[in-house]
């Protein structure tokens, strides 16, 4: 961690954030770092507790040993002091000196050191303080005071002492006892036991603990790696398989190994995939059955319809020879035959779309003449209902790779609907274009559509008002076919409407066959008024769309 840098500076935060992002993004990283941190903490905690226990044990052992030794040494010294035959100062001094010399350890490096000093309050000065390898300042006054207060017992402290010039201080057990030195009075005999060996042992223990701790952490890392690998690899495989299934590769399955939770997950995943595949197949076969039925019925109706058509044409041609009511029936028969034929044709068309048999022949064409031709096609109807069709066309050519027949059919259908539901008000046809997309909007200012109607307007055989008088004899399949036509071009057909304000149908087409409009474009803006220039201005704008490369095989 770059603990020394300021986290709020962008330069420092950037790698930190990257690290954090990486950490959050990787389950394995999270598991390993958590395991290492927790393992290290645990190892440190355990090591610290054990280490302190060991240190305390060593010192306790050394204290016990020092106390025993000091007890023996002091008894020996006291007996020697009592046994001397010299009372003069130099005799006592010599005795004390030789006794202390004999009590010191064999070598200065280890073994006990001795300090003999007059007890507090003993100022006879017969024997001055003397020591072997102990500095006077290493004997704390508190020790002497404790001896003075309780001379019947040893007094023990553990503290660092210096072992001579230029050498470091070493922790030592210091045991003080009261002795009596004939006429020289009470003295404090202090024995110092440096804990050199204990310190060495402790150093060794620390090294072992550090090595052990590092080993433990390494082991934790290894275990975490292994564990996460065992868990994340199957999860990754499941994720990959799920993506494959989502992409439509329903045959994708997971291998089931063993009987653990991961095996259960794989089994469940496979069962789910099996179930989905099965249902999709069923639905597909049902749909195909339905389509084939519609297609078959349409085809089967064509033959008797042809015969009926021929008979009807004969009757129609001879209607003048009949009485007036019969002639009228012949006319009606002829009209209904036309409608029947249209209906059948549209049924066949839609069944072709359903079966995927619809063929599209796209060429580079100017869409503007196609629009003009469609408008000319509905002009008689418009004049009949009193509507005026207003064209808003760009001046340049608008080359679009399209099947002209299908686009004409779509435009015709839209224009017919607009005129029929325009309540005699003007109908605006606007062509807008960008480099990639062309948009044709057909806007009427009639009764409009409600929200529900807008959702249903592209459904088959749906009518805005079933009771409405059929002036054009629409089959109810026109807009469904138009939507399919737009789709096979990689485009979209959308509607925007407000009840009473009219409706606007917008056809969006990619200008090249290599692209499709991948996502649903923004909704078509609703008309603002009965007749306003703002609507035309809105329609003249091609909305922002998401284009994608066309990958459809059926084209």
């Amino acid at each position, binding site marked *: 961690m770059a603990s020394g840098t300021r986290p709020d500076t962008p330069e420092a935060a950037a790698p930190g954030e990257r690290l954090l992002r990486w950490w959050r993004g990787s389950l394995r990283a999270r598991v390993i770092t958590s395991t290492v941190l927790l393992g290290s903490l645990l190892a440190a905690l355990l090591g610290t507790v054990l280490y*302190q226990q060991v240190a305390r044990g060593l010192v306790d052992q050394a204290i016990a040993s020092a106390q025993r030794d000091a007890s023996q040494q002091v008894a020996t010294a006291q007996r020697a002091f009592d046994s001397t035959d010299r009372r003069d100062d130099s005799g006592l001094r010599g005795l004390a000196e030789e006794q202390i010399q004999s009590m010191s350890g064999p070598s200065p490096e280890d073994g006990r050191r001795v300090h003999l000093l007059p007890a507090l309050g003993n100022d006879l000065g017969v024997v001055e303080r003397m020591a072997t390898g102990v500095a006077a300042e290493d004997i704390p006054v508190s020790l002497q005071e404790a001896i003075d207060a309780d001379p*019947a017992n040893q007094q023990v402290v553990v503290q660092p002492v210096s072992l001579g010039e230029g050498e470091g201080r070493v922790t030592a057990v210091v045991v003080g006892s009261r002795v009596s030195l004939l006429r020289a009075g009470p003295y404090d005999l202090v024995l110092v036991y440096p804990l050199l060996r204990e310190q060495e042992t402790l150093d060794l223990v620390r090294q072992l603990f550090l090595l052990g701790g590092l080993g433990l952490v390494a082991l934790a890392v290894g275990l975490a790696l292994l564990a996460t690998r065992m868990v994340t690899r199957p999860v990754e495989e499941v994720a990959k398989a799920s993506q494959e299934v989502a992409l439509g590769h329903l045959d994708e399955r997971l291998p089931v190994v063993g009987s653990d939770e991961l095996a259960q997950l794989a089994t469940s995943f496979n069962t789910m995939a099996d179930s989905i595949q099965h249902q999709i197949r069923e639905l597909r076969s049902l749909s195909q059955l339905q389509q084939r039925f519609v297609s078959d019925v349409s085809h089967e109706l064509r033959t008797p319809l042809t015969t009926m058509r021929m008979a009807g044409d004969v009757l129609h041609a001879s209607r003048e020879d009949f009485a007036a009511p019969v002639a009228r029936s012949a006319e009606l028969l002829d009209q209904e035959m036309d409608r029947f034929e249209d209906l059948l044709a549209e049924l066949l068309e839609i069944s072709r779309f359903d079966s995927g048999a619809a063929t599209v022949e796209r060429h580079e064409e100017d869409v503007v003449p196609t629009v003009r031709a469609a408008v000319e096609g509905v002009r008689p109807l418009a004049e009949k209902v009193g509507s005026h069709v207003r064209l808003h066309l760009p001046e340049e050519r608008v080359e679009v790779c399209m099947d002209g027949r299908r686009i004409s059919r779509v435009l015709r259908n839209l224009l017919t609907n607009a005129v029929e539901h325009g309540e005699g008000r003007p109908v605006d046809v606007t062509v807008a274009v960008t480099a990639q997309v062309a948009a044709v909007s057909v806007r009427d200012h009639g009764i409009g559509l409600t929200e529900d109607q807008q959702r249903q307007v592209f459904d088959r055989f749906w009518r805005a008002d079933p009771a409405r008088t059929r002036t054009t004899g629409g089959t109810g399949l026109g807009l469904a076919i138009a939507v399919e036509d737009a789709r096979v071009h990689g485009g979209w057909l959308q509607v925007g409407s407000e009840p009473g304000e009219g409706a606007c149908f917008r056809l969006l087409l990619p200008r090249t066959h290599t692209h499709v409009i991948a996502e649903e474009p923004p909704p078509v803006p609703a008309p603002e008024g009965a007749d306003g220039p703002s609507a035309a201005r809105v329609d003249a704008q091609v909305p922002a769309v998401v284009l994608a490369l066309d990958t459809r095989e059926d084209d």
Partner: protein
Amino acid sequence: MPRRTLIIAVAVALGLAGCSGELPTTPDPRPGLPVSQQSDREVDRFVAAAEEGDTELEIVQGFLRAAEGFASDTDVSRTYLTSELASAWVPTSTVSIYEGETTLTRTGPGEVTVEVQTVGRLDADGRLTEQSPRTSTHTFELTEVGGEHRISAFPDDASLWLSQLAFERAFRPTTLSYLNTQQDVFVPELRWLADSEGLPTSVTRAQLAPLPPHLEGAVRTAAGEGMRLATPAVPVDPSSLVATVNLQGATLAGDGAADELQSQLAHSLLGLSSVAGVQVQVAGQPLRLEGADGPITGATQLPFSDLEREVGQVLLRVGEQLTVVDPSQYALRDVPESALGDVDLPAVGLEWTGVSATGDLDDLAAVSGDGGSFRRWRGEQVHTNEGIGDRLTAPAVDTNGAFWLGGVHRSSQTPRIWVVDADDLDAVARPVETDWLADQERVHGLSISPDGSRAAVVLGTVESASGEVSHRLVLSGIVRDGQGRPSGLTEPLQLVPHLDEVTSARWRSAGELLLVGQRPEDPAPQPFLLPLGGWLESLGELPGVVDVVPVPRATGAEAIARTEDGGIFVPEGQEGWQPVRNGDQVVVPGG
């Protein structure tokens, strides 16, 4: 986040604490084990310390009274001294022993004279020299210290003055043990050492000291030069009474030396009532005595022993006749013929005097009345040697059966001492080296110690002025050659210098002599017992006594005295003598 910070802080603290690498310390004193060995010194005599306002006379008087307690723990006698003198005062360096009252006189400012009857002196080594009581004057110097008088200087001749009574309380006669060169027996040496807790230390110190000059070459000691106490103390364990002698400074030559050293030290220390066991260590390593496990607790464990000699029969000479008598019988009755066995005693002509006999009664020897001939008897054989010298003394016999003679060399007229070896009846008399004998001195008597290591020699010196002969007694060690034959006598130590006259000296035991001598106050010679190094003891007046012979017994030697008129006396009661028989000489075989 506070929790996370807390965890990190705890971890860091633990880590730092754990990895500090230092042993934990406890700087506050806490009680340990009880101090088992408290000083067990107790004040045993109450003597007054110097008090405020004491006069000079009172100070000196007080010091003389308190001096007895010099060895006690309080040592109040030092309070009478200036601090300089108190610090340096070694009371035992020279002790003057007096008798009777002291007379103190202030002879001037800061000067007090003490008049005492001195009867003896003790040197720093603890050797007592008795002297005839005589008045002596000692002058103490005093100075004022903080308004108080204190003794600042002692008289030159001593450092401690004790009455005889106080001396015997404060000092204890202690036997040091040296080794005989010929046998595995100890040679005792009596010393007076301060009776205190330090007595074992003093004994050890004395034992480790070099041999006194008169024993050099005559006895052995295993304490080599440079050997000393590691600590100048010999502690005695209060519960087991085991004295631990920790030595250092010299190496021991072989196991024998270690055993000898241990034997000497143990024998000397076990003689103290305060010691029940002895552990000898060299440089802290305990020495092991073969056969003894742990400390030496009895003299029987030692490879050396005290000399023990018992004589069951003594010879009584009446005229030419030698009779075996039983000394254990009160009246020295004759031993019946039946109990004698094959003892065949010769008739000793009246011209032969000073008969002596070996321990087994096989060899007898005597000198002629004129001191010019020496004769030996062995069974039927007799050999006379007339060419040794003149004025020969009565022969003394030693443990090897050799006869010792004192006399004058015929040509040079100088005193000589000869030895006639035991082996051959006609062995020549071999002079031993006695450089210290002055030409005008004459050997009047000889006695060889029962262990054969020392000789008591009665020497006579002719006073040139009066022509009178004065006798003195000396003790000399016997130096022997590789074969154990005597080759010389060491520089002697004079004994009983306070006696005016010594006519006879005979070894009673390895450490005692029986004397016939005369003190200045005595009207006539008397029998005495002299423990070597101790006070002379009178055995009771016996008018006309000429000789006292010891008869070694298991219960202690008995004395048999002979008077001029041929009366044989045995002791009766504390200081009385009982006539038991008549005879010309009592001969103790082997001594």
